[in-house]
């Protein structure tokens, strides 16, 4: 590999922004992380025309990180839960933040995680006390103006139960590189739902990581619908017995959108379970690429892992590459994967039209129905309706 790829050139204005950022949000380690971001390859340089994102393609001259407004946060009623912006959390609850920060996301482990962590200019912290179970979700809404580097950290203590809903909206031309980190201690049950509906000329790079403790569960429900370019990395590290991971992702590039998703569940101990469900459609010249990793370590016996990934192509020029990748080193496990790629089924369309339903309406119903098994995993009826409405708008566009 030639070293002349010119990695490591940290733009000066990014370097200079770090001290101001860290004075406001003293998350620490920024210099090293920024250097790391520009020294790592993205891992996405493989020779394939649909595998296109790299930091080298991002014009950082136009990215000016400054402290961004905190997200809007809505908390449910009930004891034992609080949520606040990251700045406040680092001032008032620094020990709690320190307990979770960087324990489920390897901040220096990948290019985009390092970039987002180094330039963090807003964020939120959600904390749920042992055995507490708030009555509704914690809702966090980001509004990306120019460059947004949000860090959302969630800590559930032993036996706690909580749902976090993150909504990502923004202005035209926004650039977002964010991290979501979820720590669920023993027996806790965490659900993290994220709806990204940025304007179609925005760019979004997300790194999400979860760490379920013993008998704990972490559930991801992610919908990537906006932005011209989305790179979504979702990792769950199962390092405790009895832990459960659930990963649900749906995405739908239309027009000239590109979406790149990698989900990884690593079973490092046995007697754990994971379910991954990915539903993607593409229309217009939409392009998407999905890589679904399931890793089962040699000693992780009695692991039960399943990955299902369905892709629907709604136009001739749309393209979805789908690669389920199972690395199984243990011999006493249940591991399933299934993948389909297809167009709308003419028999289904005929069946519906034979009932008087117009062809276009039939196609819309079938396409929306295709996503429905994934939508049903999302928490809260209002959020599901939001996802459906956003999908409907894209189908009918």
């Amino acid at each position, binding site marked *: 590999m030639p070293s002349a790829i010119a990695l490591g050139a940290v733009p000066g204005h990014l370097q200079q922004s770090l001290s101001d950022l860290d004075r406001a949000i003293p998350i620490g380690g920024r210099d090293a992380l920024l250097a790391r971001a520009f020294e790592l390859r993205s891992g996405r340089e493989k020779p394939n025309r649909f595998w296109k994102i790299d930091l080298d393609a991002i014009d950082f001259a136009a990215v000016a990180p400054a402290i961004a407004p905190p997200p809007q946060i809505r908390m449910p009623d009930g004891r034992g839960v609080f949520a606040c912006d990251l700045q406040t959390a680092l001032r008032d609850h620094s020990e709690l933040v320190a307990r979770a920060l960087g324990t489920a996301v390897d901040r220096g482990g990948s290019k985009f995680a390092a970039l987002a962590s180094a330039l963090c200019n807003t964020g939120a912290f959600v904390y749920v006390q042992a055995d507490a179970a708030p009555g509704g979700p914690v809702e966090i809404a980001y509004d990306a103006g120019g460059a947004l580097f949000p860090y959302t950290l969630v800590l559930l203590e032993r036996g706690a139960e909580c749902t976090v809903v993150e909504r990502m909206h923004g202005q035209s031309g926004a650039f977002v590189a964010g991290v979501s980190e979820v720590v669920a201690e023993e027996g806790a049950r965490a659900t993290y739902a994220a709806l990204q509906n940025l304007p179609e000329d925005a760019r979004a790079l997300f790194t999400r990581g979860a760490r379920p403790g013993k008998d704990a569960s972490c559930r991801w429900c992610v919908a990537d619908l906006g932005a011209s370019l989305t790179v979504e990395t979702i990792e769950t590290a199962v390092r405790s017995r009895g832990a459960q991971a659930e990963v649900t992702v749906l995405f739908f590039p239309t027009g000239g959108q590109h979406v790149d998703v990698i989900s990884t569940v690593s079973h490092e101990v046995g007697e754990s379970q994971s379910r991954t469900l990915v539903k993607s459609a593409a229309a217009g010249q939409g392009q998407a690429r999905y890589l679904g990793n399931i890793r089962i370590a040699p000693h992780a016996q009695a692991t039960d892992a399943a990955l299902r990934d369905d892709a629907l192509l709604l136009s001739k020029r749309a393209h979805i590459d789908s690669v389920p990748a199972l690395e199984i080193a243990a011999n006493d496990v249940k591991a399933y994967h299934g993948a389909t790629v297809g167009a709308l*089924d*003419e*028999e*289904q369309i*005929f*069946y*519906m*039209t*034979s*009932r*008087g*339903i*117009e*062809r276009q*309406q*039939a196609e819309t*119903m*079938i396409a*929306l*129905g*295709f*996503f*429905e*098994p994934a939508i049903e995993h999302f928490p809260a009826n209002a959020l599901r309706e939001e996802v459906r409405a956003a999908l409907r708008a894209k189908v009918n566009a």
Partner: protein
Amino acid sequence: MTDRGLRISDLHVDVAGNHILKGIDLYVEPGRVHALMGPNGSGKSTLAFALTGHPNYRVVSGSATLDGEDLFALPPDKRARAGLFLSFQYPAAIPGVKVANFLHAARQAVRPGDLTPSKFRALLMEKLQTLDMDPAFLGRYLNDGFSGGEKKRLEMLQMAVIGPKYAILDETDSGLDVDALRAVGESVHALRASEEGNKTGFLIITHYPRILQHIEADAVHVMIDGRIVKEGAAELAHRIEREGYEGLREEIGQLA
């Protein structure tokens, strides 16, 4: 005066380059039950699909009119809106589309805006009860994971909810146990007894006469090798039950 009825004249249909229907003449009267019988492969289902407009069935020549309207000039959805209904032998499964939503979309398409949501709900409940079906059906995905019997019941529920002018039942009896068969018979009777369906004409396609113990046919048409070879009253079905199609083949052979 319009020509009432579902009228098929000298219909020739190809499927994948094979000439299947070789000149069908058939007239289904409003309010009457016609049985179309014949051995497997005689072209009965081809007739059903050609009438409803399946893209794989190519009409070579001939005509079909529904109360005077040229069916072949219409796409499938408009044929349904004109009043035609097909109960599929193998209905498509559509995951993610709930039965209730589908039924509502179909009713809205065929009879736009005739019921408020609450009245539609009441209609659904009434039809479910008539068909002895669990309301839990409504929340399931369309035909997804349904047993054969459940699929046929759902076809009958759709027929009841839509209330078509002409209903073709394509082997709705096949693969059904006695109870399910009785339910099919009852759903036809229920539609005929309803205000929407008292003028409905039925074309009941079957190769086995036992469905006709539950639904009495006013006329029986026998199709062999893409042609209607014999027509008669209900007695013709009983004869087929006794003798099979072989007796008819011999008789036709003698005539030819």
